[in-house]
C-alpha cells in the first residue's frame, strides 16, 4: 500500500516537469523579445537590460528554464503586465473563487448522478433507465454557457429570484455570496450530471454481467443486497476516476460559465490575460491549472484503493 502510494507520487514528478517545460516553451513560441513583451510600451533601454538580466535572457535556453522554474517553485511567477500585481497571488485568489464553484457542483452532481446511474443499470431497458439515459444524453448535449444563459433568463430576468451577474465573497457577506453562487453551481451541476450518470451506469452494467453477481443472486440474496453490497463497490472505481477528470477539466473549462455570470475566477483571468497579451499571467495560469490537474489525478489515484483494494495491493 505504501509502495503503491510512493510509486504513484514519484510518477507524478516527471509529469510535472514535462508540464513546466511545455508551458515555458509555449510562451517562448510567441514571436518577439520576452523582455519587451513583459515591459510593454513603457520599456526603456535600461529597464529592458535589467529584465533581460533577471530572466537570464543573455544565457542559453536551458539556463533560462532553470531560472524561471526555480522562481516558480518558490511561488514567484513574475508580475502582471497590466496591473503590476504578483502573478502568484492573483492566480491563487482567483483560484479559490473558481474552486468553490467547481467543487460544490461536482460534489452535488456525483451525489445525485452515481446512485441514479446505478439504478438505471439495475433497471436496464426499463422505464426508469430509458428516462434517466434520455435525460443524461440531453444534459450532455447542452453547453454549460447556454444552460447558464437560460437559467439567467428564467431566474434572473423573468422571475427575478436571483441576482443576475456578479460575485460577492463569503467572507464579506455569506448570504449574498450564496445567492450569487446558486446559478453558476446549478449550471455546472446539471451539465456534469449527464457525464457522470452515463459513466456510473456503464460501469455498473459491466459489473452486473460478471459471474460473482450471478453467484450472489443464485445464493438467494435480495436484489438490494446484490446491488448495494456487491455491485456498487466495484462499479464505483471507474466513476471515481471520471469524477477526478471532470474536476480537472472544469478548471480549464469554467471560463465560459464565469463569463456568463461575470465571476472573477481563474478561467476569466486566463481569457482576459489572453486579450491583454499579459504573458506572465497566461504563463502563470497555465502552469498553475496544469499542476492542479496533475495533483487532482494524483489524489484520485491515491484514494482509488479505498474503493478497489485490488489496486495497490499488487
Amino acid at each position: 500500500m505504501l509502495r503503491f502510494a510512493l510509486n504513484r507520487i514519484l510518477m507524478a514528478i516527471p509529469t510535472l516537469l514535462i508540464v513546466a517545460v511545455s508551458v515555458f516553451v509555449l510562451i517562448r513560441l510567441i514571436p518577439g523579445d520576452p523582455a519587451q513583451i513583459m515591459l510593454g510600451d513603457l520599456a526603456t533601454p535600461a529597464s529592458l537590460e535589467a529584465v533581460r538580466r533577471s530572466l537570464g535572457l543573455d544565457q542559453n535556453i536551458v539556463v533560462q528554464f532553470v531560472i524561471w522554474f526555480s522562481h516558480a517553485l518558490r511561488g514567484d511567477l513574475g508580475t502582471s503586465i497590466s496591473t503590476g500585481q504578483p502573478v502568484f497571488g492573483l492566480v491563487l485568489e482567483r483560484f479559490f473563487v473558481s474552486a468553490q464553484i467547481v467543487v460544490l457542483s461536482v460534489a452535488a452532481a456525483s451525489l445525485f448522478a452515481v446512485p441514479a446511474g446505478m439504478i438505471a443499470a439495475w433497471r436496464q431497458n426499463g422505464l426508469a433507465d430509458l428516462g434517466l439515459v434520455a435525460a443524461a444524453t440531453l444534459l450532455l448535449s447542452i453547453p454549460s454557457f447556454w444552460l447558464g444563459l437560460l437559467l439567467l433568463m428564467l431566474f434572473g430576468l423573468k422571475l427575478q429570484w436571483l441576482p443576475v451577474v456578479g460575485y460577492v465573497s463569503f467572507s464579506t457577506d455569506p448570504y449574498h455570496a450564496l445567492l450569487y453562487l446558486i446559478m453558476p453551481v446549478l449550471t455546472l451541476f446539471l451539465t456534469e450530471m449527464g457525464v457522470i450518470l452515463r459513466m456510473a451506469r456503464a460501469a455498473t452494467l459491466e459489473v452486473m454481467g460478471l459471474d460473482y453477481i450471478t453467484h450472489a443472486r443464485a445464493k438467494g440474496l435480495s436484489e438490494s443486497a446484490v446491488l448495494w453490497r456487491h455491485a456498487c463497490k466495484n462499479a464505483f472505481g471507474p466513476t471515481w476516476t471520471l469524477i477526478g477528470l471532470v474536476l480537472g477539466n472544469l478548471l480549464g473549462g469554467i471560463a465560459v460559465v464565469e463569463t456568463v455570470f461575470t465571476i472573477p475566477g481563474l478561467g476569466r483571468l486566463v481569457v482576459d490575460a489572453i486579450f491583454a497579451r499579459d504573458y506572465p499571467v497566461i504563463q502563470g495560469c497555465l502552469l498553475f491549472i496544469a499542476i492542479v490537474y496533475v495533483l487532482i489525478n494524483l489524489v484520485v489515484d491515491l484514494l482509488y484503493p479505498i474503493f478497489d483494494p485490488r489496486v495497490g495491493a499488487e
Partner: protein
Amino acid sequence: MRWTSPGALLGAILVALVLAAALTGAVWTPYDPLQIDFAARFAPPGARHLLGADAFGRDVLSRLMAGASTSVMISLLTVTLATGLGSGLGLLTGYVRGWTDRTIMAFINALLAFPGILLALGLLAVIGANKYGIVAALSIAYTPVVTRMVRGVVLSLREREFVEASRIMGNSPIHTMLVHVLPNCVAPITVLATSMFGWVILAESALSFLGLGVPPPAPTWGNMLAAARPYLGQAAWLGIFPGLCISLTLLGINLLGDAVRDRLDPRMRGLS
C-alpha cells in the same frame, strides 16, 4: 438492428439537418448575414424575419445558417487533421517502438497533461484567435487523444498471428502497417472521430463565446450568444436560437455516436 433504434434515427435526422443547413448556408441565406438594417432592429420572430433580427437588424436565421457552415467546416477540418495526424503517429509509435516511440509519446503525454480546453486557450494565445488559429489549436489539442488510442490498438495487434505472418512473408513494415494493421484500427478511429466532431463543435462555440474564436462580424453560434448577452431581457430569441442550434447538433452527434459505437464495438453494446 440498432441502426434503426429511435435514438439513432433521431441522431441521424438531426445531423442531416445540420449538414443541410451548413451546405445551404454556404451558398444561400434568406438575407445577407452581415447586412445591417436598423429598421429591423430587435424585430421579433415573424413573417419577415423567421427567427427575428439582432441588435443591428441582421437576420438571425441567415446568421445561424452561415454560422452552421463555419462551425461544420472548422469541425471537419479539425477532425480530419487530428485523426489523420493522430492515427499516423499512433501507427508509427505503436509499430516501430523504441526511441521513436518514447520521444513522440513524451510529447503526446506532455500535451495530455493539460486539462480540457486549456491547451487550446494557451495555443490560441500563441497562434492568434481566428478561424485558422482555432483549427490549428484544436487539432493540436485533440491529436494526442487519437495517438494514444491508436497506439494502444496497434500494440495489441502487432503481436497477433496475421501481423507476424505478414512480417515473415517479407513484407515491408510500411506495407504491413498500411495493409494489415491500419484496417483493423478503422472501427475505433471512426467511433472516436464521431464523438470528436461533437467535442470540436462544443469547443469552437465555447471559444467563440469567449471572444477567442471566429472574430465578429462573421457569425458563429458561439459569438451570436455572446453578442446576445446584453439584450436577453428585451430580445430573448437572440439568446435561445443559437444555443438551441448548438444543443440539437450535439444531441444528434451524441445519439449517432452511441449508435456508431454500438455497431462497431460490440463489447460496448448497450453499456452507455
